[in-house]
């Protein structure tokens, strides 16, 4: 217990000493996670809205698939993308492996099913009169899509934030595609794993505390937005 409390005090001291290495790692993590969440939202939100609004063959099967993909192991995505991006892979010529872009792409695929599914839930939980009202007022299909998303913006934002939370907390994709290169692809989670292995428990704990703070801050912001909407 003494070891843990001493490490905790040292970790807090590191945070408030504004250790540049810690904050560089945090910034890298946040930047990669925001980028992947934005990319996944750019694809996933319209996709979720389209799946909800339109009826087509195989819709149920697609939804079952999306649900299953939410539980996709991060190392599996890491493995697949490693195969695609490695020098001998079909996308090897782009030289993306061990870059931030590789991690962003991998995490985007990881969180895409989450964003799509939660967007579908957000729209499905809208008042059943919303869509007929928009149709009745003469909204085109694109206008319907945009207005439904506008009406459900807080719930859709929840989908994005949940995706961000999943991205910032994952380690498999970041480790396999980023390579944990200091100052380039070292994220909070990969750094925590590395520093713990090295025996730098205080440093790892400081990063862990910052990771928690980021998660709390994002969720706090979401609550404020939700309350403002009500």
């Amino acid at each position, binding site marked *: 217990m003494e070891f843990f409390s001493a490490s905790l005090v040292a970790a807090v001291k590191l945070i408030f000493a504004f250790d540049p290495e810690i904050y560089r790692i945090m910034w890298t993590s946040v930047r990669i996670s925001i980028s992947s969440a934005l990319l996944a939202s750019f694809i996933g939100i319209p996709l979720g809205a389209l799946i909800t609004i339109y009826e087509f063959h195989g819709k149920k099967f697609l939804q079952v698939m999306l649900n299953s993909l939410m539980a996709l192991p991060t190392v599996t995505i890491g493995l697949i993308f490693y195969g695609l991006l490695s020098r001998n892979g079909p996308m090897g010529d782009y030289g993306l492996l061990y870059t931030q872009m590789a991690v962003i792409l991998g995490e985007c695929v990881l969180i895409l099913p989450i964003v799509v599914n939660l967007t579908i839930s957000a729209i499905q939980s809208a008042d059943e009169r919303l869509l007929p*009202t928009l149709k*009745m007022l003469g909204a085109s299909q694109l206008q319907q899509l945009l207005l439904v998303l506008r009406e459900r913006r807080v719930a859709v934002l929840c989908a994005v934030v949940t995706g961000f939370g999943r991205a910032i907390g994952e380690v498999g994709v970041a480790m396999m595609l980023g390579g944990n290169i200091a100052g380039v692809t070292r994220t909070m989670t990969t750094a925590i794993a590395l520093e713990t292995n090295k025996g730098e428990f205080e440093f790892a704990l400081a990063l862990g505390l910052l990771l928690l703070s980021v998660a709390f801050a994002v969720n706090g912001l979401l609550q404020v937005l939700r309350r403002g909407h009500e």
Partner: protein
Amino acid sequence: MTIPTIAYSLTGIQCAYANGPAVLEIENLDFQSKNITALIGPNGAGKSTLLSVLAFLKAPNAGRLQYFGRDCSNKNLLQLRRRVGLVAQKPYFLSGSVTENVELGLRLRGVNFRQRRKQASRALQQVDAQALSDQSVKTLSGGEAQRIALARVLVLQPDVLLLDEPFTFLDTGVIKTLEKLFVALVAEFGTTIIFSTHDRFHAMLLADHVVSLVNGCITESPLINFYSGKIVDGFFDTGHLKIQLPEPIQNGSYVCIDPNEIVLSEQPLISTMRNRYPAVVTSITVDSGNIRMTVDGPEQFQVLITRQALDDFGFKIGEEIWVNFKSTAVEVVGSYTTKFD
């Protein structure tokens, strides 16, 4: 080019939800343009479904729907929807102010801000709701919401105005204002108005035509004094009274009695009228020169009499009287399952 006088022409229309039974089955029905048509019928009769079909929100499962002489298809759906306006029974508003909601349809049509504000203000004035313009839609009462929903459609100046139970939450004063507005819309702009209502007398007084719906089918009956029950030994048993039928009919779950065929008297009439029940006068109202009396007996009856008859007999509220009618005044509306009791 002359504008067709038929707004809608329905032939062999069938509608069902999911894999359920048909909720609407109409062989032939035309709606005259520049007219007010009322749809009447009990809950579940198919009024709202029919309005959804006419608003191009629900595609029929079978049949042909023509709008001003042109066949309707999925290809011209947006153009068709933009020519009609539906005011739902429980309207939905998007988050924002009353004005933002009233303007929405214009915004979707690309009308500029200044023009939108001007037209929205005029529409709010038409429904006597200018005072609500800056209010959030979340704070509207049922009656206010109904009026704002109407303004939201009126602002689009539709060729056809469809209203689902428009008078449900409104007080008498507002109802009168809206009735005048509907008549003016028909007279000035040639708008076709189709509305659904439970109040059959109201329908008969306001509308040029009345369409009665029972269990998704058109019926000739005006559906006044409309009772559900079952036929037992030549009588229709509502559970509260037994009505003598004109002929031996085996099946039938609904009957209605023409309000003009009911005779009120101080004593039971000894005549060919085989249906006689004691009742109490509960209301006497004047509707377009006719006297409409409501009398409560084993069932509630609506009766239409002339002013002369009222003066002669001097009926008063609370007075005990007799309700008399011939069995020929009773119409068995149809043999239906009791799905909307």
